[in-house]
């Protein structure tokens, strides 16, 4: 009986070994497939986009013809994307960091307000980007903008604020990326050892002094990561810009917050759907995609590196 049982176990484990290989193989293969698809996209873009990249391409505008290979450049788009992203950062970082500070340093973990804020943040993170576009149009442009026009320029019949603009696009993106900043900052705050806060408070520091002089400086890398993640997320977003500020074509660079702007991501969309001849304009298209990818990846890579360093440091400290 014992012998029999032992044999069975042996047979089972042999069959088990086959299953084990199959299972590990299948899941490993799926992982490899995902990475392979990523590689295909990257290689494809790099392969076709690289020849199009030149100093001219990134510094020239579209004065001549935005669809003419060799003449068209993407400088206005790089400018527009950078401008809207920087502007967005100015809005989203203060609000996001402050919210995270409230949630982590001030609020009781179980208070109703905290729970509602957390739910709101989670929901904000899930709102589709096109809905942010609708919100930007309905709230920023037609609600705020129209009213600003009424108040500031009552006799000027042309809308100045009540139309798509750099400012409104940046604000819309700030709303969209708020959860990213909040979550990243909170993670950074959570990572700080509680001993640090206690040390400061036990010396007679007030809460504000502790936060300002001890907590924030030490959470800076994490806050930075949040900012970079938000920026890289926003840099490639197009849907929220469709009605809030991105222009199909502009002869000049935007000069004020109320101007529209050209945008890298939107330009990719324009080039791939509105081109008179896709085969011919392919080099510009691939070049633009490559520039956009390089920009977002550079930002992402920075965020990943900063975060990895931060985690390592925390692990070393903890």
């Amino acid at each position, binding site marked *: 009986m014992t012998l029999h049982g032992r044999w069975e176990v042996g047979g089972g*484990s042999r069959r*088990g070994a086959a*299953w084990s290989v199959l*299972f590990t193989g299948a*899941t*490993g293969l*799926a*992982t490899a497939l*995902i*990475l392979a*698809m*990523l590689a295909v*996209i990257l290689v*494809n873009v790099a392969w076709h986009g690289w020849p199009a990249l030149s100093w001219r391409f990134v510094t020239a505008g579209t004065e001549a013809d935005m669809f003419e290979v060799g003449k068209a450049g993407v400088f206005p788009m790089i400018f527009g994307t950078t401008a809207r992203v920087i502007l967005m950062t100015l809005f989203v970082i*203060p*609000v996001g960091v*402050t*919210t995270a500070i*409230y949630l982590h340093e*001030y*609020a009781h973990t179980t208070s109703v307000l905290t729970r509602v804020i957390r739910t*709101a943040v*989670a*929901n*904000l*993170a*899930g*709102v*589709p*980007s*096109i*809905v*942010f*576009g*609708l*919100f930007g149009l309905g*709230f920023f442009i*037609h609600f705020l903008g129209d009213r600003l026009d009424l108040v500031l320029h009552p006799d000027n*019949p042309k*809308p100045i604020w009540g139309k798509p603009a750099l400012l409104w696009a940046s604000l819309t993106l700030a*709303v969209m990326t*708020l959860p990213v900043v909040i979550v990243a900052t909170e993670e950074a705050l959570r990572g700080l050892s509680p001993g640090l806060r206690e040390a400061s408070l036990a010396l007679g520091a007030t*809460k504000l002094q502790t936060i300002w002089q001890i907590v924030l400086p030490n959470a800076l890398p994490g806050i930075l990561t949040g900012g970079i993640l938000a920026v*890289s997320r926003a*840099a*490639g*977003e*197009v849907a929220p810009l469709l*009605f809030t500020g991105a222009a199909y074509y502009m002869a000049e660079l935007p000069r004020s917050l109320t101007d529209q702007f050209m945008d890298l*991501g939107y330009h990719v*969309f324009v080039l*791939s*759907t509105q081109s008179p001849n896709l085969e011919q304009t392919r080099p510009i*298209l691939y070049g633009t995609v490559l520039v*956009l*990818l390089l920009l*977002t*990846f550079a930002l*992402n890579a920075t965020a*990943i590196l900063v975060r990895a360093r931060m985690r390592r440091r925390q692990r070393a400290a903890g």
Partner: protein
Amino acid sequence: MAEPSHPGGRRPGWQALDRGQRARPWEWVAEQAIRVVSVTAIVLVFLIFVFVMREALPVLLGRVNSAAAQERRALPVEQMDRLDPEELRQYLELSRKEFAEMDRDTLRLLMEVKLEAAEEVPEDKDAPLNTAAWRYLLGPHQWTGYDRPAYIWQPVSSIHKYNIVPLIVGSLKTSVVALLFAVPLALAAALYVSQLAPPRLKEWVKPGIELLAGIPSVVLGFFGLVVLATFLQQVCGYASRLNAFVAGIALGLACIPVIFSIAEDALTSVPRSFSEAALALGSSRWQAAWQVVLPAAVPGVFAAIVLGFGRAVGETMVVLMASGNASLLTWSVFDSTRTMTATIAAELAETVFGGHHYRILFLLGALLFAVTFLSNLLGELVIQRLKRRLEGGR
């Protein structure tokens, strides 16, 4: 006493403790300010809801009339002076900017043109229908020129046809394709990375998938449109180059990182003791993963799928570029397809502010908001309950 003098000056007696809390106005102001700012997230969600619903509500309540016949009731030119500027602008369907740039004569001319156009339009039996009413938004209708009742989205024809069923079906089709493609891959990868992969490999795979998450959706859409569409057409040999299938695959690429990261998180948060217990009883690693860890993390996996669905339904640029955008109501994934998001993206810029088309697009937005809101809520709830259960069981 030979002690160094107190840094803050003379040492006060302990009575100082009883003198009451020192007023620290800045401390108080800062705390209140921080609290006020942190409410922003709540206010924003509320505002999004209000401002999307504000435009959509008149349609919901049946207060919008889009009957073509009503538009054709053109006004005699002499009535121009009786309208106030805003009425006139709306009557002539001009944007504020255009209206501002026109002088009186041009406006007069436009009124004449409008009158003539109205007289030229042939009578249509559908012209008196309010196509923005619920039964036309959701139900089939026998339109002039069609041989049977149909679900038609054709907002810019002479009779505005606003049936949203083809768009909903389009969104579902692309999302289902995306999930069928993404869920098996992402879950398998999550199992592999969390349970089976050697740690060194893990450190490479996770940033890789984060990189995939970092690819802007417009680039995925571009990739679907320029590369994937041609490739898949050659492989599968269907007729329409851009369709729900192509868009679904490209969309799947956008969903994989979402599903992967949530599922991986859920699988990793299953206490090590679970699988160790199984291993101690003689199971192999994959058996422990499959029979112990995965079942314990099922709610997390479910949440991953739900949130992946939310992402798929809400994604705009991929489907706008790769799905073909024909609003046909078919169940075949190989037909050109138009989704709700793509419809908003493509059409909103050309609508009249406050008009019926504008409002119905906002209605689509509200629908999207509701669907993603609910799926996120469901996903979050499930994850929280899972976390609590696993922590409680620890």
